[in-house]
């Protein structure tokens, strides 16, 4: 089988982990609607025995799209590699990876236990790192670029949920490093920071207000999918290593954390500056020396 079809992503093959429900489901459907052949990876099976991935595949196919279901476990490097290889086997190549698979636990530093920490780290951080590593090898070998969208959370650097927040922050670091490494190959890596009502996060918008972000007007998971899809288009070839917040109709692009260029930075020295000292110091803050 090979990727065919029409639309802005015609001929492209996408793998969406956690694609059976919530944000991932919306992303899979929008990418398919743009012409991509989509591998929907999800392990969830409901009480009636219906696999979430198969349901989404059926939805895509009913709308004229091309999709295949996968139930592999991305929570190990071996499993992640198998899921990526499964996508290549299904449609012949891999152009887009969106890593929505996740889980959640609210434990703080006082009550977190190691099994919970291991589980969250496996699904989120190992899942992301393993999928990115395998996908990067495939995309590099293909030689014509690629698109990767990781899924983190503002809670990564704000949240007290020790295991969940730690893994989500680590994904942000992973995104930056992978974006730098893969940019010469035409592979973009961007990080989505979503806020939506999903099975994992049923709390309403009023409980998500931090970091100066205003109340969201809409919280539908499907509203976020177009943002992800944009990052997967040819037009977004110059967008990489960015942190994009999306919630309903709200968008924000965060500057990379702990970077000083482009920001107001106040410097106090314990004695007056000399000209040479200013010349040595200030260009870095101004980004004037490359």
């Amino acid at each position, binding site marked *: 089988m090979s990727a065919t079809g029409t639309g802005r992503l015609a001929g492209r093959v996408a793998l969406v982990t956690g694609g059976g429900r919530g944000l991932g489901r919306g992303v899979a459907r929008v990418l398919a609607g743009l012409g991509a052949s989509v591998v929907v990876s999800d392990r969830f099976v409901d009480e009636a025995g219906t696999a979430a991935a198969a349901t989404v595949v059926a939805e895509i196919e009913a709308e004229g799209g091309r999709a295949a279901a996968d139930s592999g476990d991305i929570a190990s490097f071996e499993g992640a590699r198998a899921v990526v290889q499964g996508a290549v086997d299904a449609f012949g190549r891999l152009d887009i990876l969106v890593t929505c698979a996740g889980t959640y636990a609210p434990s703080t530093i006082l009550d977190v236990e190691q099994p919970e920490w291991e589980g969250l780290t496996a699904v989120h951080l190992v899942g992301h790192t393993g999928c990115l590593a395998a996908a990067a090898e495939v995309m590099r070998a293909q030689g014509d670029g690629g698109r990767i969208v990781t899924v983190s959370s503002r809670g990564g650097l*704000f949240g007290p949920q020790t295991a969940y927040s730690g893994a989500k922050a680590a994904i942000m670091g992973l995104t930056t490093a992978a974006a730098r490494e893969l940019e010469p190959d035409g592979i973009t890596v961007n990080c989505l920071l979503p806020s939506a009502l999903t099975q994992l996060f049923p709390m309403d918008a009023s409980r998500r207000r931090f970091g100066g972000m205003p109340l969201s007007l809409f919280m539908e998971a499907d509203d976020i999918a177009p943002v992800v899809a944009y990052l997967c288009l040819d037009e977004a070839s110059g967008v990489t290593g960015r942190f994009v917040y999306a919630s309903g109709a709200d968008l924000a692009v965060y500057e990379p954390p702990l970077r000083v260029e482009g920001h107001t930075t106040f410097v106090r020295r314990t004695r007056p500056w000399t000209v040479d000292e200013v010349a040595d110091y200030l260009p*870095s*803050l101004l980004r004037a020396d490359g």
Partner: protein
Amino acid sequence: MQEPAGRTVLVAGPDVSGAGAALQALGSSIVIVGPETSSFADCDAAVADAVAAHGSVDVLLLPVPPRSSARIAQLDAGEWRAGIDAVTRRSTGLLRAFARHRVSAGGGGHVVSFASSAVFDSDGVGQASMNAAVLSLTSGASATLAPHGIAVNCIVLGGPERQGGMPRPDTDDDAALLALVAHLASVEPSFTGRYLYCGGRDIGLYAMPLTIEQAHLLVRLPEPVGPDELGAVLAPLAEVGQA
């Protein structure tokens, strides 16, 4: 500020730039726990042993994430996992054990974590993930532990070259780092959850990440709207930067 004399400091070795030794010179007792202390159970035992020997543990210095240039393509999964266990899991386990001890002792205490200014300016995926996780641990734990009077702050270490846009340090003298560690080991508990830069003799306070300040605000209306609908869209924007 609390005087360092008479306090016990648990150092997740190796001792960064002799920070533990510097606190020892100020009169603290030092307990160094090695990298074999990796599981949560190991960390619980390490803190319990230190409490048994010294009566309490008052300060915790977390491990420094190692430098690594491991790339995402051709990643060595075993090496990557070992790094996560040695730094991220160990830091979480030690901080959990310390926090439980301090809360049961009535609160108070200081935690200093360490990250690299290359955290979002690095090709090394393991290094970037480990350092970012330290930032998260610092922020999250500081929020949880603030009601207990426990301060948790992070020193973001500059490298010999420019990292994260910071100017290149003009010295590798670590006196400023040691002074900063000593300061944060004694700081008022209201000073918590902060990221402080230290490179040579350059000391800095970072703005909090992912926080909107002084934003320009734009709205695109897909269709004509009336004043009530416009108000519903605009009113929340007055809260930007305030939440």
